[in-house]
């Protein structure tokens, strides 16, 4: 418990650190939202000055940061200048879509890649194993953006799936069931791309973890005792091989909000990614910071959950000396 508490404190400190970093960057950078306005001769410098003071941008950095932290503690991340509305609800409506997409992709990815990794490990360095591993290395080294564009090109060309957005125009006219189906079909493409991008790495790690245990003497002994392969795998090998897989699962959780920015933007999924991208182009300060903070929060939360799971699964960590890793 003490271990987890320490981790939690650390996570909070890290979150603070990230926010400080964000504010430092805003201070150091030369540009601001009002730059474009300043070029417009119809807007007087006084207007800009009054706008700046309305958004509190004329205050010194420390005051701004203090105010921001104060309101962020009450889940208020400031005011978006471009959308002219509070940041938190903007982020939240989009974050829900991103979470929906990534949860689906994550479930699919893990359902596919764990059995696949275990199966490849049981091939035990045969020609098949080497061939699959080689293919997998290539798959892993493909950049996300290329996978996304290539899959999109195929799908658009042969019109296999509806592309873009999350629902069709007439969604209000549809029943709940039909709407869910509509969303599901439109989700298929980004989910497919995300799975393709992520499965490779998980398969590789699962294979490596299982392969290491398969060579252990106790597995040989179990086999000699006549324990069936399936039982041996599920009852004896997988629990021992679980540690790196759990860490990886934590990473997956951590990326729930931030892992799909690129793919959302390319597929037109109305998630957090496109919102932050637009905010970047509009230099909408607090919206960008809010997005970074929210996804950092998920990162830290994911890591924390992974720590808790490791603690629950591995007695070695419970006996202390865990902080050294």
């Amino acid at each position, binding site marked *: 418990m003490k271990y987890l508490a320490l981790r939690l404190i650390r996570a909070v400190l890290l979150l603070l650190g990230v926010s400080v*970093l*964000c504010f430092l960057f805003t201070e150091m950078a030369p*540009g601001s939202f009002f730059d474009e306005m300043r070029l417009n001769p119809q807007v007087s410098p006084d207007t800009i000055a009054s706008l700046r003071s309305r958004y509190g941008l004329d205050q010194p950095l420390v005051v701004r940061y203090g105010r921001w932290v104060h309101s962020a503690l009450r889940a208020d991340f400031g005011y978006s200048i471009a959308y002219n509305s509070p940041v938190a609800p903007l982020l939240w409506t989009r974050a829900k879509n991103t979470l929906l997409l990534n949860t689906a992709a994550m479930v699919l990815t893990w359902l596919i890649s764990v059995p696949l990794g275990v199966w490849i490990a049981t091939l035990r360095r045969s020609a098949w194993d080497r061939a699959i591993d080689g293919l997998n290395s290539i798959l892993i080294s493909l950049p996300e953006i290329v996978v996304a564009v290539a899959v999109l090109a195929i799908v*658009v060309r042969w019109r296999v799936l509806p592309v873009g957005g999350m629902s069709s125009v007439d969604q209000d006219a549809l029943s709940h069931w039909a709407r869910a189906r509509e969303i599901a079909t439109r989700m298929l493409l980004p989910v497919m791309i995300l799975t393709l991008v992520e499965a490779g790495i998980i398969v590789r790690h699962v294979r490596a973890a299982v392969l290491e245990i398969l060579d252990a003497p106790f597995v040989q002994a179990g086999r000699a005792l006549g324990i069936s392969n399936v039982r041996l795998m599920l009852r004896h090998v997988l629990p021992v091989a679980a540690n790196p897989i759990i860490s990886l699962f934590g990473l997956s959780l951590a990326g729930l909000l931030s892992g799909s920015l690129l793919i959302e933007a390319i597929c037109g999924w109305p998630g957090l990614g496109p919102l932050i991208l637009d905010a970047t*182009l509009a230099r909408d300060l607090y919206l960008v910071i809010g997005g970074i903070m929210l996804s950092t929060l998920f990162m830290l939360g994911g890591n924390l959950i992974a720590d808790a799971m490791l603690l629950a699964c591995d007695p070695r960590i419970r006996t202390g000396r865990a902080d050294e890793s």
Partner: protein
Amino acid sequence: MNRKASILILALAALHLALLFTGFLAPCDPIAQDRDLPYAPPTRLHFRDTSGWHLRPFVYALQPGPDGYIEDRSQSFLVRLMVRGNKYKLLGLVPLDWHLIGVDQPGKIALLGTDEFGRDEFSRVLYGGQISVAAGILATLVALTAGATFGVVAGYYGWIVDEALMGATELFLCLPWLYFLLGVRAFLPLHLSATRTFFLLTAVIGLIGWARPARLVRGIVLTARTRNYVLAAKGFGGSDSYVMRRHILPEVMSVLVAQAALLVPRYIAAEVTLSFFGLGVNEPTASWGNMLSVLQRYSVLVSYQWLLAPAVALVITSVIYGLLADALLSRLEFQST
């Protein structure tokens, strides 16, 4: 294993040489537009006409037709090696106008077709590769230099320095890096000259990535610090900086090389991603990212497949680097066991 690694290194060397000698290999100026030939498909090389087979390939002139372009069989132009064309500077130094291939004037050769402004896609892939790959390599150098410096310092001095630096790495490791990159970009002026954006971007990408190499290096330094030869060098009165340079850095080198092979493709992809969204290197300077950004329009994506050429180039580069990183990493593992 060794043979595989050397083949990969050879392929990598060939790739980088091609990018170094881009001016010579590319038949056209990458920003020269030809408004009469937008979205022309890759030029077909012909060896046979009505009079029979020819040894030297030739191309026909293109005429806009009802459905794309049609070849005008009455005008043919021979493809030649070593022709004079637009001026460029070889390696940025030697002014030249020789090109490896070209066609007789006023013919046009576009080996990979043309983009929406009629610019030669093949030349742009090469010139864009210069930008994208250089961005990847420079960012990697920044990340590894910062990482190695901080890692060595943290591991060597230990105590509070170590605690502080490792806390900082944790901070950078938990950042959702693409979001953070966008954030940093948001605070930089949107319209910058291509060179300034290029250097700012590489610096930012590299600086965000210093944490992981720093941790790896620190781990190695921690074990290297207690080695007998390090202790001996210290005993003989070697200064801290001498011991770090002479005895500890070489130990770290092999890990850094493997990390470089891992990071370069990742940072190339980072540059491509940013430019893809219009946040990186701006037009008219070619980069693989901003060349791909036209594909955000589904109509272009469906009709003009040759515009996927930068993606193919990116894949080739990433796969070679990725396989090399695999080979180097497994070798490191092999050595350490």
